[in-house]
């Protein structure tokens, strides 16, 4: 388990994979991430400040919803990130099961609570947004319901991490669960959409209605980039913490074995 030697690279074209394997060495990952992190945080702060300024002060208010629609600049990127983080976890799960990449399960473990947080932010801001526009805190709207199910899957995955003591076994169990979830999520999304059209005459959002104004689109996209950077930064910090945590645990076990 402690042998992190990268496999020999036969193909020169496989440099991407080679670099991915080079990072498989936790020590190399730590120094690489330590160098990258300040830049990542800086970029996150700048884009988020710019996006928030644009979204909250510069972008025009909606002619129907007024200023309350500005919550969109948080809500929509959070929803996107909720899905993106799950995609990251799915890739990590493949890394754990197929390639046995030693950092894949660290990445997956680090990502799950972040993804859950993004979905919670999405649901809470959606609820705040729903109160003035729809007149209710919660609506069984197709999208909200799908996000809620996504949150439940995140929570199940986190619970599974906590339930199994041994990190390696937990990693594989969670990887299988993540893949099962990844196969199911599109089906769930489809069925919830279908269920919703059966129950409610039309979606609150106008389908094929007027497209979003460029002045509103720009801050939205900037905020999406800012959220992605934020995820990358937090993800990296959590990965570092997880690696250090495992190292500490290994040292503690070694010390205990030495004394016993």
């Amino acid at each position, binding site marked *: 388990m402690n042998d992190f030697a990268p496999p020999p690279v036969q193909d020169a074209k496989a440099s991407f994979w080679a670099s991915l394997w080079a990072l498989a060495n936790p020590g190399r990952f730590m120094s690489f991430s330590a160098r990258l992190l300040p830049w990542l945080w800086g970029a996150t702060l700048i884009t988020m400040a710019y996006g928030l300024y644009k979204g909250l002060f510069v972008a025009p208010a909606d002619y129907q919803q007024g200023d309350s629609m500005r919550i969109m600049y948080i809500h929509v990127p959070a929803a996107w990130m909720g899905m993106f983080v799950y995609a990251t976890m799915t890739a990590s799960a493949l890394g754990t099961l197929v390639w046995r990449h030693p950092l894949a399960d660290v990445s997956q473990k680090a990502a799950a609570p972040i993804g859950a947080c993004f979905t919670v932010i999405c649901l809470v801001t959606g609820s705040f947004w729903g109160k003035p526009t729809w007149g209710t805190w919660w609506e069984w709207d197709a999208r909200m319901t799908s996000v809620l199910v996504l949150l439940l899957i995140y929570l199940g995955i986190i619970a*599974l991490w906590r339930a199994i003591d041994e990190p390696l076994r937990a990693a594989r169990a969670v990887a*299988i669960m993540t893949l099962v979830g990844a196969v199911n999520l599109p089906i769930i999304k489809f069925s*919830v959409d279908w269920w919703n059209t059966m129950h409610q005459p039309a979606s609150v959002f106008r389908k094929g209605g007027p497209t979003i104004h460029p002045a509103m689109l720009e801050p939205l996209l900037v905020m999406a980039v800012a959220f992605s950077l934020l995820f990358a930064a937090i993800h990296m910090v959590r990965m570092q913490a997880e690696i250090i945590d495992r190292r500490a645990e290994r040292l503690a076990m070694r010390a205990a074995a030495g004394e016993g």
Partner: protein
Amino acid sequence: MIAALRAVLSRELTLASRIGAGVELGIVFFLILISVTPFALGPDQKLLSRLAPALLWLSALLATLLGLDRLLQADEEDGVIDELMMSEAPLELVLAVKALAHWLVTGLPLAVLAPLLGLMLAISPEAMLPLCLSLAIGTPALTFIGLVGAALTVTLRRGGLLLSILVLPLTVPTLIFGIAVVREASVGQPIATPLTLLSAITLIILVLSPFAAAAALRMTRS
């Protein structure tokens, strides 16, 4: 291989009836659930009739979950899983047969009994057959999703609650289309669309879940 699988099936069914988890108990469980609901909702026939499909489907969900945490765990504890892994039959098929046995004592009785229970809940006559049909097609999906959860939590002492948390979100599509079949039928609409979608989802799950469950079980050995 067929003989081995048949042996597993008969073992599961015998075990279920000997330890008092057989068909009769499942039937009594549904009867109790359905008898309790009017106390919660009031004896209003119209309301009960409207909620009947949902109630029966929720009972199916509960019944599937109840025995699941023991589906593999009992065999894990006494070492039967190891023997099954060494048998000539592939683990995927063995697990599928075990899930089939579980369905035979939980899902199938509910599907067969649905008209009687539906009668107690004043369900409309034209929704009766679709209800049976949707339960018969949909409940195997519930059991097989549960199989994955059971395999993932097999080594955990108190896996029952975690199992439900893992499994329930994945049952959403089955629930949606299962109930849609009954709802369409009760308003006189054709049921082909939800029924086909329900069958499609069940088939996907039947094919994929034994592989996921077997992978999860093998992982506990490495």
